[in-house]
């Protein structure tokens, strides 16, 4: 058993109310939730592995696969949609050669789609790690992505 994993888990009292906070804490440390983490949480909280997996796969925050170094979050909010977000998404996918939810083979980028980044006044937007790129046009995408490689 991974010691660092148990250290994170054992900070929380053994109550089902802590299921989501535990998973959030593990993902923050380990980038994603692997099979071992899901089983360890289930055992610790006295739940079935299926129950933990059910919650982990239900909430969009939780990832069951390792992500790339740079996480690209593309906003698919309404304001972004009417301002041309679809073309931005296409441009990102085309430039990196991967689809939403995937990671590039070199492990540099992952694309995630998010419901709303809350910067609706600056639509369309995308976020790479913590930086927001606002009022985008698709011809700018290539340059932005190049600045990360």
């Amino acid at each position, binding site marked *: 058993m991974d010691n660092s994993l148990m250290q994170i888990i054992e900070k929380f009292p053994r109550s089902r109310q802590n299921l*989501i906070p535990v998973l959030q804490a593990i993902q923050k440390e380990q980038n994603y939730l692997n099979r071992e983490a899901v089983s360890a949480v289930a055992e610790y*909280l006295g739940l079935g592995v299926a129950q933990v997996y059910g919650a982990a796969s239900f909430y969009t925050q939780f990832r069951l696969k390792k992500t790339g170094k740079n996480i690209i979050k593309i906003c698919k909010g309404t304001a972004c949609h009417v301002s041309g977000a679809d073309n931005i998404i296409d441009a990102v996918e*085309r430039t990196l050669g991967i689809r939403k939810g995937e990671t590039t083979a070199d492990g540099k980028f992952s694309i995630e789609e998010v419901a709303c980044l809350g910067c609706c006044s600056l639509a369309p937007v995308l976020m790479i790690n913590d930086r927001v790129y606002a009022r985008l046009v698709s011809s700018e995408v290539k340059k932005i992505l190049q600045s990360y490689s």
Partner: protein
Amino acid sequence: MEVIKNPEVLSVWRKKILNKNTFYTHTVSLCGGTGCQAGSCGTVISAFKKELARNKLEKKVRLRVTGCHGFCEQGPLMIIEPDNIFYCRLSPGDVPEILTQTIKNHKIIERLCYTDPSTQKKCPVESKIPFYAQQSRILIDRNKNTDPSDIEDYIAENGYAALCKSLKMQANDIIQEILKSGLRGRGGGGYPTGKKWQQTAAAAGEKKYIICNADEGDPGAYMDRSILEGNPHSVIEGMMIGAKAIGADEGIIYVRNEYPLAVLHAGIALEQCRNAGLLGKNILGSGFSFDIRIVRGAGAFVSGESSALIASISGKVGEPSPKDVHLSEKGLEQNPTNMNNVETWANIPLIIENGAMWFASRGTERSKGTKIFALTGKIKNTGLVEVAMGTSLKKIIYDIGGGSISGTVKAVQTGGPSGGCLPASKFDLPVDFEALSEAGSMVGSGGMVVMDENTCMVDVARYFLDFLIDESCGKCVPCRIGLSRIREIICRITEGKAEMQDLELLEEISQTVSEASLCALGKTAPNPVLSTIRYFREEYISHIHDKKCPAKVCKSLIKFSISPEICTGCGACKRECPAGAISGEKKQIHNIDQSICTKCGICRETCRLSAISLN
């Protein structure tokens, strides 16, 4: 920080803070909300701090980093008091000049002032800017006077005075006051808040919970985030008053994990309250005990529904349950639970402090007070807009929003994915719960997305369906399967493969989904489809019958072409085309191969001569 033992000590503290603030000659409120952060306000803030230190002005000029001021489109922005000067679209390079010109010499820097897009006039004073002047900002206006991580700012603005007042009141009198005010839930349902409190107060049980629903999942709505980020104490004070009225001793703020700044500021505010003795045992010596904790959501739109939210707090999959028993009787851990939305809670202290009649003086007969809307989309002034209930859509869109960028507003979408699209002919409608519902949309949580002639209404319906199918929990059949069938038909329409009878089929399935779904997500999911068919039927017919998308959005029905009269053969489009669909020798007219073209539109963005047209 000393522990406040009674209301008198709080008044003394308030006087001390106000006295301390008189030492400053100027206060600069710089917006640090999420919208302005996206516009790099961080660099302006650090430049300002550096310049203040360099000019030795730290003791004379107060820099206050606040939450959202609402005019996100103009960020980064600041207000300089006492003259109420408004500067926008700032960059770090502007800062030295602001200090030397405006603060030291009272000169206005024209370049940094807001230009009214309709008159092209500069407006240096915040309160005179049409966007602000035409609103009724009782909630959101407090943000600019508040550093959300400093409890003293909130106390200076008479914060926690309403709590003191309520601690002396009988629980039932507080509830009566809220009932009289006519306040209705701001999360979308519009249920009378006082009535909800009455039911939870009357429910049998020793242990009762108060929950603040900050799981604002509507794409295009961010007013709750702005309140929690910019003025967390107003929400906390509202929850305390609610707890006292209902008899609860434990509160939870359930907030979206996508709102890290709101989580941070609410956490700091709670800690400050505990240190000051405003939360915990025997608050202000009244014998009333109450505390609040934060639970972070994990990203699921449906978890904003009350029964799903309870499941999520309990560590379960956030699915809704049938509502045969109300939360007010059996909520969290089977105990009576009262859940209200962020904006609702933020209204409570104002009602208690100023009285129910003051609150009810704004609004319509059935919808009282103000409501914050997130005005976005194809409009000149975007941002958060707070208006009295009953204000017409016209006033919001044209007078406050400044109208469309392209000239004509085709529709406005209100209420998020559960709402609907209203055409320009309905813009005289007053914004209140009943009027919008009768017109086939809803107030909802307050998203307001403006659309112009470049927005395809069929595509908008498809967009919301995509969202709702993603977010449907899949528990009940009508929602899970019905929505997918509706989407199939809508997709056929956008691809030009549909027939006229598909419209009837759409309406029929929509009705079944509305009637038979388990929770509000499914019940309201067909609204975007039904409202667009109701008001924009001719657009559907163009797609189906003429195989044309009038807004030129649906990719299967559009075609890019190069005008031979304008093209000079510069080759820019050919170089940028990711599909390699453009051919042509240098200085010769270029051509697009329609069989390869993916219709991404990059060629059209690239061409400096506008030689590429969309048909």
